[in-house]
């Protein structure tokens, strides 16, 4: 993976600040990618509580849906009526969820030191880091790949200077993939993984 000096330095800095039990775990990178997605109670990072976390590994041309990670998280506060409409998770759905602490530990076990992949990944990572920073001593050290960014790079080569629509539906359409219904966070991580494989075969994977 080609990373800038700044990124390399930042990675090292974060690894250095990791609490000991996590340094080993997050140092493991087998070259696979992990597509991740969270559903939250709000779109503002400050207010957002995690309601579900999903992650799926991509190895070569295979999406490991069979061994995917998905868990509902029991929120600390009552859910907002408005946001129920956005994520479709009702209070009764998440009340059976895992305690947040446990969910985050399991998530870390799953991702290890692999590169993270997502659609508007910045937001998900920001929400996760809100909890991880006190836990790990630093934010997630993992490298990140933004699928809409790789899509932009591919498109802009064909249409230099044009406005490039980065909406979910447009990316699906132009990459000719078969998106899963937007039913839960896991389906979205799988769809993002499919986007990534289509981009990878066009020469726009991880460089």
């Amino acid at each position: 993976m080609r990373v800038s000096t700044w990124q390399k330095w930042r990675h090292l800095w974060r690894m250095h600040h990791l609490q000991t039990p996590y340094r080993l775990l997050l140092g493991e990178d087998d070259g696979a990618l992990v597509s991740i997605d969270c559903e939250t109670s709000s779109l503002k990072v400050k207010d957002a509580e995690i309601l579900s976390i999903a992650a799926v590994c991509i190895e070569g041309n295979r999406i490991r849906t069979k061994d995917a990670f998905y868990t509902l998280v029991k929120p600390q506060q009552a859910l907002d009526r408005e946001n129920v409409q956005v994520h479709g998770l009702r209070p009764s759905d998440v009340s059976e969820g895992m305690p947040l602490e446990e969910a985050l530990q399991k998530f870390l076990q799953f991702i290890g030191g692999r590169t993270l992949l997502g659609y508007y990944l910045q937001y998900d990572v920001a929400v996760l880091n809100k909890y991880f920073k006190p836990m790990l001593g630093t934010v997630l050290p993992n490298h990140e790949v933004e699928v809409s960014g790789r899509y932009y790079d591919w498109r802009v080569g064909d249409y230099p200077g044009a406005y490039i629509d980065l909406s979910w539906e447009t990316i699906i359409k132009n990459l000719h993939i078969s998106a899963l219904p937007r039913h839960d966070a896991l389906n979205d991580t799988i769809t993002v993984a499919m986007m990534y494989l289509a981009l990878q075969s066009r020469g726009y994977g991880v460089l």
Partner: protein
Amino acid sequence: MVATRFDLSHPPFDLLTLAEASALSAAADILFFGNDQEILPTGSMVDSLYLVMKGLVRETAGDDVVGVYREHETFDCRALATGKTIHRFVAHEEALLCVFPRQDVLALTEKNPAFGAYFFSTVSDKFGQLAQKRDRREWQSLFTAKICDAGFRSPVFIDATATIADAARLMKEQHRRSIFVRDGERIGLFTTGDFRDIVANGVSNQTLVRERSQFSLLSCEKSDYLFNALLLMTQRNIHRVVVTEDGIPIGVLAQSDLLSFFSNHSLSIAQQLEMATTVDDLTRATQEMETLVATLAVQGMKMPQLARLVQALNTQLMVRLWEMVAPPDVFAGSALLALGSEGRGEQILKADQDNALILAEGLNEKEVEQAASNFTEQMLRLGYPLCHGGVMVNQKLWRHTVRGWSQILQEWARQSQGDALMNLAIFLDAETVAGSPTYLAKCRDALQAGLRDDATWLSRMALPIEQFQNTRVEGGFWSQMLNREKDARLDIKKAAIFPIVHGVRVLALEADIRVTNTFDRLGALASKLILDKTLANDLAESLAFLMRLRLDAGLVSLREKKAVSNDIDTATLSTLDKDLLKDALMVTKRFKQMVQQRYHLDRF
């Protein structure tokens, strides 16, 4: 809410229970392949079953494309059993595949017999499964048919002040079991059932009909589902409901109307043909035949049986017509023959006329000619197109005495090429429609006696089986689908029906099997051990399936008022039908190879 993560609503996965589908879905991974990337090399071990989510996959044997898989289609079913693929699979267009572990799928095939049958059954079992599906369609028609489809009768009214005796007379005249009673604004119903009470209670027949009628009527709107009418009758235990249009009574639907909608009415057509005295009467009957065929096909009647039924009706029609146009001595002194597919009883929709006459000695030539050309003309009026090859009674070539026929048949057999050969093939399928069958038997004896007892002769006879072996209909068919050509049509007559029918015909000729129907010939060939029983079964099922495809396409053409042809638009076929078509073409190929070897056709 989606039941399973991956769409498993297509065959064979639609046979799984929800729990089975969810478990299988959870065990699946996704694979991505770029253009022309190899998925499975020839001879590789296969530990998965692949379902195409997106894209196009081609299956090749050497340089030949032998299969194409698109969205919702599954491969490699053979490798599921053997664990090894004999062909190569390549992504023709970028493909996303859902990958199911072979062990999980195998476990399901054991747990769920219907699902297992899809993978492990012989071709003829698979077709049987399809037939079961069609049975389900029959039930569906009950739920989708509207009351207006059932054909209820228009209403007959009587005034409420008429007497019961008047009502009885009106019902007798009009052949009705129920009549409407008009009483000012009120509408009532008076039925034959009411007479039971009238007689039992000694009511005078001069009583006003108003007093014995039912005025609180149960009704259904004309646009309502037939099923609702059935439900109402069942719930209230009544025999008929009033059919209304915007609340106004327009007829009565009886239980018997309901029943006859779901069974056939071939008997009534036969009756109409029997009672016909003019060509116009016959025209009406033939129009009803088309409706009958469409109904029975939808209800899942099997093709060989449906074809026989149509043959019986067509035969009756031709007899009646021949009787109408031929002078009595010509009718009595001749045998009218149906030839080709009509003779074999494999024609379901109206096809070109193929007929001939065998005449007694000493008939008036002029009278015969006039009757024959009149017959051909009237058949055309009834909707049977003229035969392009002129195989019709109005042609002198197709009217002979027994002696004349014997000579000409032997001459055709001697030439055994070109037109003579095709004419002979057509005649081999002759069936007597009207007149004495002994005429035809004598002609066949003469032909059989004159047949040369050498293998080259039969080889030449079998040769046309190869005549449509161009790329367009065979190997080219799959590449056509690969290239997503707009024209994904396949002439199934050339590709499969003709090779099967002709091959079977030649084998039957060699064995002197005199029945003409291909299904019967296959049965006879199998019992004489000339054909392997499995192959004979597969051929019969394939032919029935192909006839069904042709019929479905034909019915669509008729609905759209287009000419019926042998072209099937493969793009419109369901996954299952495409799968079965693939199997039917494979069976045809296997049979052709068998015939080619038997008659050493590679010598030509």
